């Protein structure tokens, strides 16, 4: 089976930095996998996600996503590729405050033809279905998103990442502003929905306790030679 994501001989350095930030010999992620990527703050997690999304260009090495070498795409092609194939989920402030809940969820369909094509019915009914599946009842839909609790906001963001069935879902610490019970519940929902739509999930966190139930666990410091940690030396 061809990998969804394949990194080889990757070297990334911020333009203003003297030493590299990421140096990864090899990383492969296969379709349907649910990866738990962890490591302390500053070990390059967000940078790696930026590289996978095509926002940052590594100085050396290959980044293949879904068989496409990002290196060969120009800026606007990478933007298109990102919205077509990857759904993003961030730590907080995920929603556009002036758009309604349903409009927020439908945003990727506004920018991507492919995501529109992958809809089951229409963007509106798909958004409604996803919101319902993520336990957001219809009476909440008309509320301004700024009135929602953080947990509810994260579920709306998850629906937005999932709409139009992108092949990859990248979640960057989406649970860190939730309390422990809600973290677990949110994770279960997310994993369930990813499995349902056949999306590969890359879940990033510094909190190793959440790793349970993922198909694979990757400690970034152990594969990032730029940090200088030895495998196993890293303690969460």
């Amino acid at each position: 089976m061809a990998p969804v994501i394949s990194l080889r001989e990757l070297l990334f350095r911020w333009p203003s930095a003297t030493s590299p930030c990421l140096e990864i010999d090899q990383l492969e992620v296969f379709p349907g996998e649910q990866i738990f990527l962890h490591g302390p703050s500053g070990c390059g997690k967000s940078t790696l996600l930026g590289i996978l999304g095509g926002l940052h260009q590594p100085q050396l090495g290959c980044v293949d996503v879904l068989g496409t070498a990002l290196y060969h795409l120009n800026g606007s092609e990478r933007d298109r590729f990102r919205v077509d194939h990857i759904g993003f989920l961030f730590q907080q402030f995920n929603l556009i405050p002036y758009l309604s809940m349903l409009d927020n969820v439908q945003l990727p369909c506004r920018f991507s033809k492919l995501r529109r094509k992958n809809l089951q019915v229409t963007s509106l009914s798909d958004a409604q279905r996803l919101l319902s599946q993520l336990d957001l009842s219809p009476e909440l839909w008309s509320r301004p998103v700024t009135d929602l609790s953080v947990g509810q906001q994260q579920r709306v963001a998850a629906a937005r990442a999932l709409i139009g069935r992108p092949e990859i879902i990248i979640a960057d610490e989406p649970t860190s502003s939730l309390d422990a019970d809600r973290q677990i519940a949110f994770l279960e929902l997310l994993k369930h929905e990813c499995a349902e739509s056949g999306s590969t999930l890359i879940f990033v966190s510094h909190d190793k306790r959440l790793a349970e139930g993922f198909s694979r666990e990757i400690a970034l410091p152990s594969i990032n030679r730029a940090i200088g940690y030895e495998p196993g030396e890293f303690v969460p």
Partner: protein
Amino acid sequence: MKYLLVMAARSAWNRKLTLSLIIAAIALSVTLLLGVERLREQAHRGFSHSVSGTDLVVGARTSPVQLMLYAVFRMGEATNNIRWESYRAISAHPMVAWSIPVSLGDSHHGFPVMGTSPEYFVHYHYGDDQSLAFASGKPFAGTFDAVLGADIAAQLGYKIGSRIVLNHGMGLGGLPEHGDKPFTVVGILKSTGTPVDRTVHVGLDAINAIHLDWVGGAPMPGFQIPQKFVHKFDLAPKEITAALIGLKSRAAVFRIQRMVNEYPEEPLLAVMPGVALDQLWQIVGIVEKSMLAISAMVAAVGMCGLVAVVLAGLNERRRELAILRSVGARPCDIFLLLTYEGFFVTLIGILLGVVLLAALTTGFAPMLQEKLGIAVRFMLVSQGELQLLGMVFAVGLLASVAPGYQAYRLSLADGMTPRL
């Protein structure tokens, strides 16, 4: 992209308070800019059109500007008069088509009284070569007939048949009256937007008649000539203040001007109204130009406000822009989003400014006409103003491109995780 427009609108609505302040600032500066421009234009038009068709203005030797001021604008007083014989000699010249004598010095409730001949109503032109028209009545025929300018009739409420009394000298209050010789209003002129509107016109003989029993600016004590007996005296004028001359051919204007200036009997001055008006306007024009400069600066401040607010808000919006990037918006979409905002804010500001000005001019036109004598016509925008507005709009658009470019750069650098 159409959805970007919707997004821009919703985003703007989300920050409506700040943006409405900016719109108000732009609207006010546009109102001010256009208002000043319009007043300036009207003032200039009223000024340069206050006399037309007259080839030469002749008076006692003084500066051309001063001669224009008293002979045409009836402001200030003549330093000296010209003799009636001199006037007769000049108007008898074969190249002179017509001449109008002007005799000033008296007033009525602060409005200047002008003694002249009936030719005045035929030959005096203003604006684009328009002649005087009567709103009611007819030119004066008898000695004690008066024709009023439109403003006087309106302000003092005179009608045909009203009796008016003239005052000796110019100015308001405390002036001795020619109370024994009242005049009857026989004609009221239509409004012209020129000093004619503020002038009481009487015959030259009337000026003489009311001064028959006066000596040295005061009634002669113990001596009075009743109104009905004035015709027993010679009412032919001895002196007049100035004269307006029309020539048969404009080509002769320099010849006649030199002839008048070199008149051997007394020192005279002939000026071409156009030249003197331009000189006069250059003096007044400095005020006008500085007004325009001030309003241009106000407009610039409005624009700076737009840039400042959008740039300041940009930091707060970095998260929003990063989210948009993560759902597929390209940096150029972000740029467009910001530029749309500036575009519409400027546009709405300009439109509001124009509407506000239209409302103000409609509301204040009677007051401006009455108090300042400036006739403001209702109009939305003229060709020249459209250019001015185009400039404001271009500056506004440029001002919105700057934040747009900054947002473009930030969204490229931030990617999806803004470093705040």
